[in-house]
């Protein structure tokens, strides 16, 4: 996967034009509400809402599948653990809870370009050091993956099969050398990428083309989330049976 691929459908999605600060707050709010909700009906509502948001976003399903694949273990494993320890109902609740959160986050990541997201985080007073680090770490992850792929191809071309477990001496040596070499090569590329950004005037501040400005559609967005949140809470407290 390329570093820009997660964002690539963002500009054409329905949720792109909404203020990233609003999207961030609403999605995080939903995740929080889900975390504190136990009632199955409430969780079902949140899950349905998140799914609707994802479907309405206009991001191609193909793309969504790869984005959600990353999060799938987080839905399955805790639910499984709960199934074995506490029973089917808590397990289902957990699955719905995590699924709702993951889907909401997917809306955020696929419809908000990285720089917009960081700008929103900075607006919420996240320190500049953190936003710089998030930006570069994100980019460098893909540099590393790229170098790893190249090295593993080169290894396979020379007959290394990778069988045997961690404590096998030969496998361990090869793997640790690969890791080391990848790191060293990625280091050179990483510094070039950093320098290139500095050369174009990056100084730690994250800037975007247009000023962040919330408009009426953002108000509608917030209202939508608040309504669902309120409904969910009411369902949980039993006021709506």
């Amino acid at each position, binding site marked *: 996967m*390329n*570093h*820009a*691929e997660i*964002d*690539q459908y*963002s*500009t054409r999605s329905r949720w792109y034009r909404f203020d990233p600060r609003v999207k961030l707050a609403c999605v995080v709010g939903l995740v929080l509400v889900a975390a504190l909700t136990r009632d199955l009906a409430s969780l079902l509502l949140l899950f349905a809402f998140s799914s609707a948001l994802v479907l309405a976003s206009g991001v191609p399903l193909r793309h969504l599948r790869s984005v959600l694949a990353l999060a799938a273990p987080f839905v399955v494993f805790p639910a499984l653990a709960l199934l074995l320890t506490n029973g089917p109902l808590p397990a289902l609740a957990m699955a719905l809870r995590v699924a709702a959160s993951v889907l909401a986050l997917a809306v955020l990541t696929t419809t908000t*370009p*990285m*720089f917009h997201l960081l700008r929103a985080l900075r607006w919420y007073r996240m320190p500049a050091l953190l936003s710089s680090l998030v930006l570069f770490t994100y*980019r460098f992850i893909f540099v590393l993956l790229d170098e790893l792929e190249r090295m593993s191809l080169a290894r396979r071309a020379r007959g290394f099969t990778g069988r045997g477990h961690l404590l096998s001496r030969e496998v361990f040596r090869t793997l640790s050398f690969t890791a080391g070499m990848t790191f060293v090569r990625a280091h050179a*590329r990483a510094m*070039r*990428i950093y*320098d*290139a*950004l*500095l*050369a*174009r*005037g*990056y*100084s730690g501040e994250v*800037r*975007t*083309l*247009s*000023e962040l400005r919330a408009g009426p559609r953002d108000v509608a967005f917030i209202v939508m989330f608040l309504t669902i949140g309120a409904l969910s809470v009411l369902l949980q407290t039993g006021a709506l049976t």
Partner: protein
Amino acid sequence: MNAIQLNDVSYTYDDGSVALRDINIAIDRGERVALVGPNGAGKSTLLHLMSALYIPTSGRVVIEGEEVTRRTAEKARLNVGFLFQDPDDQVFMPRVYDDVAFGPINLRLGPEEVRLRVEQAIAMAGIRGYEERAPHHLSFGEKKRVAIAGILAMRSPILLLDEPTANLDPQGRRDLVNILESQEGKTMVLATHDLSVAFELTDRVIVLKRTVLYDGSIRGLVERPDILAEARLELPSVPRLMERWMQRTGRAGPLPLTIDEALAALDGCAPRS
């Protein structure tokens, strides 16, 4: 005022290896200079110093009249547009338009001015119509144009280019040379192995091998085979051909470097019918 000035500059890497020693260079505004030398000569390091990305270990680097120090480096960089060798290292954003706009936005220009510059830069780089495309889907040559557009949009008075024609197909190379040719009034430093590009675009050449081996006109350089040898350089085919031809026919005069010059010299010989 010089655009770029280096006084007794040396640069040593963190691991102790010396990259550059006792560099003294002065480049005027609007001058175009080629920077040549073998691999490992320090060309890239020198460009980094000229763009205020590195601070010299000793000596002074002065860009557009201001000395480069840790404090002034950030501002100094805005005077210099640095085109990196690998566009993958330089192109950052998921959309061409956004990437070209990155520089102007960092210059804190208003949205209208940014739009204007981006559109002009995209036109100059020949990538009109690519605005919505994702850079990582483009070919090498196309990515290079996006990188150039990004630099041009900043409208810096100084342009530094690290091996700009490397890995480009012949047409791409031609297009790049045309783009650079059309940049009027800009100070330009071109680090390259490709001497023919140097001949076409510049009049002055600096030969670098950790120190400055030669700094003068290109014509002067071709008459110094010793320096060419030490810098592991080879003249391109046209001058080499003309060199042998002139030896064989006993013709005297300046060595033709470009095709045009060679044709002029050949025309001077009456054709035997």
